[in-house]
């Protein structure tokens, strides 16, 4: 199996960058939002923004399913973890997210049995290996991840596992984008679509962005060349006054999505009437809970949790960062009271959160190189 170095080829990157410079109208400022933490990471990790002209700006949106989990939900997970019967399992992503009074890492240091897993299947196996304990999986993620939880629950049911439970915090990608587009604060020109979410749901759910709101969308792969290519495709749409959903990630994303995934999600989950998104408020039909058929596995039914809505600390401006209204460095506590080692808000906790990504990788004096203009 080859490593993907060809996608990182600097020479190809320079060519694409040159084409972008040629196409970008000098009297216009372009704001392109990406809604996937993977794209945020690629952009910062490879310094992609350095190859763009100063008037093409990449804005980071709410693409971090960990970042949007409200503090009260983390507190509930910690309450469950403190039950001595319980082994709480979760992805590493969740362990440092601060709740109202500490994170899962701190709860673990204080004696709660919290274990990191890479897949919900690992959590199910822990349950099967520990029949005397309750194993609760703290499920997070967009539609890319929800099928993994769903398939695991189907397996748990088929194998009659009685000590495995899921605390579902799965969220869906379309409602927050719609909420952003409805928001008066924001002026965006286009979107870079989330590549692996679209592998599951396809390109169709994003049509409303083009048809209802008139913004081009390009669904992008994750290598730096993919992102540059997607920016070029967006600029071409804008120059040609087209407004479509295009798929740059054709090697992986099917237009119609994955029909198996729709089936298993419909079987195992149902939409909550509404769900609180940190920084974005309550959004209707934006999150998943276990369906009635899987009620036996629902941690929210089994454990009574505080269920308290914890307000964000007053200093926290994660909401504005998540909406792309302010840049990370414009937040009053960025880098001072809120740092990766002592995060106040989730944009700083998750390594793909906009604030963490900027703090860890992007905290540089911007130097836009002006590549040779190419005749297009």
């Amino acid at each position, binding site marked *: 199996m080859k490593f993907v170095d060809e996608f990182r080829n600097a020479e190809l990157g320079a060519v694409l960058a040159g084409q972008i410079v040629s196409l970008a109208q000098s009297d216009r400022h372009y704001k392109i939002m990406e809604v996937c933490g993977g794209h945020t990471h690629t952009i910062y990790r490879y310094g992609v923004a350095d190859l763009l002209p100063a008037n093409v700006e990449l804005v980071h949106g709410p693409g971090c399913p960990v970042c949007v989990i409200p503090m009260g939900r983390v507190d509930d997970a910690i309450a469950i973890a403190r039950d001595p019967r319980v082994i709480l399992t979760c992805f590493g*992503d969740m362990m440092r997210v601060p709740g109202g009074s500490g994170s899962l890492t701190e709860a673990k240091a204080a004696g709660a049995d919290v274990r*990191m897993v890479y897949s919900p299947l*690992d959590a199910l196996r822990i349950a099967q290996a520990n029949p005397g304990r309750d194993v609760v999986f703290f499920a997070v993620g967009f539609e890319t991840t929800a*099928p993994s939880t769903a398939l695991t629950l*189907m397996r748990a049911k088929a194998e009659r596992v009685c000590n495995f439970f899921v605390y579902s915090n799965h969220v869906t990608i379309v409602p927050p984008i719609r909420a952003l587009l409805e928001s008066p604060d924001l002026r965006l020109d286009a979107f870079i679509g989330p*590549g692996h979410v679209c592998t599951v749901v396809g390109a169709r759910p994003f049509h409303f962005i083009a048809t209802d709101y008139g913004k081009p969308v390009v669904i992008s792969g994750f290598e730096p060349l993919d992102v540059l290519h997607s920016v070029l495709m967006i600029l071409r749409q804008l120059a040609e006054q087209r407004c479509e959903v295009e798929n740059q990630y054709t090697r992986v994303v099917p237009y119609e999505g994955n029909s198996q995934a729709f089936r298993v999600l419909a079987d195992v989950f149902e939409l909550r009437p509404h769900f609180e998104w940190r920084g974005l408020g309550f959004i209707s039909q934006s999150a998943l809970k276990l369906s009635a058929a899987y009620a036996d596995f629902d941690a929210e039914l089994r454990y009574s949790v505080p269920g308290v809505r914890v307000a964000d600390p007053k200093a926290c401006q994660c909401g504005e960062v998540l909406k792309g209204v302010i840049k990370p460095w414009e937040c009053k506590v960025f880098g001072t009271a809120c740092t990766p080692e002592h995060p106040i808000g989730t944009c700083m906790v998750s390594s793909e959160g906009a604030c963490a990504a900027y703090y860890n990788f992007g905290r540089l004096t911007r130097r836009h190189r002006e590549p040779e203009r190419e005749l297009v």
Partner: protein
Amino acid sequence: MRPDDAHCDDPYSCITCSDAAVPMIVASIDRDIGSCTDAAGAPHDVMLGLVPDARPGSRVLVHAGVALTIEPEGAP
């Protein structure tokens, strides 16, 4: 990666936020679980419920323990 080895939290790789999907090759299939190997040769148990056409030798993209899609032949 074994769950009981995972004492660490890993702040540099957020599976869900990065929407990461890792290419693997299916070595063998037992009902709906594929034993797959990644680029380093490490074995992983992967749920194949979303890719019923997967066969031993298929290249799949794996996220959080589930194969999301089969990569076409000749894809890099």
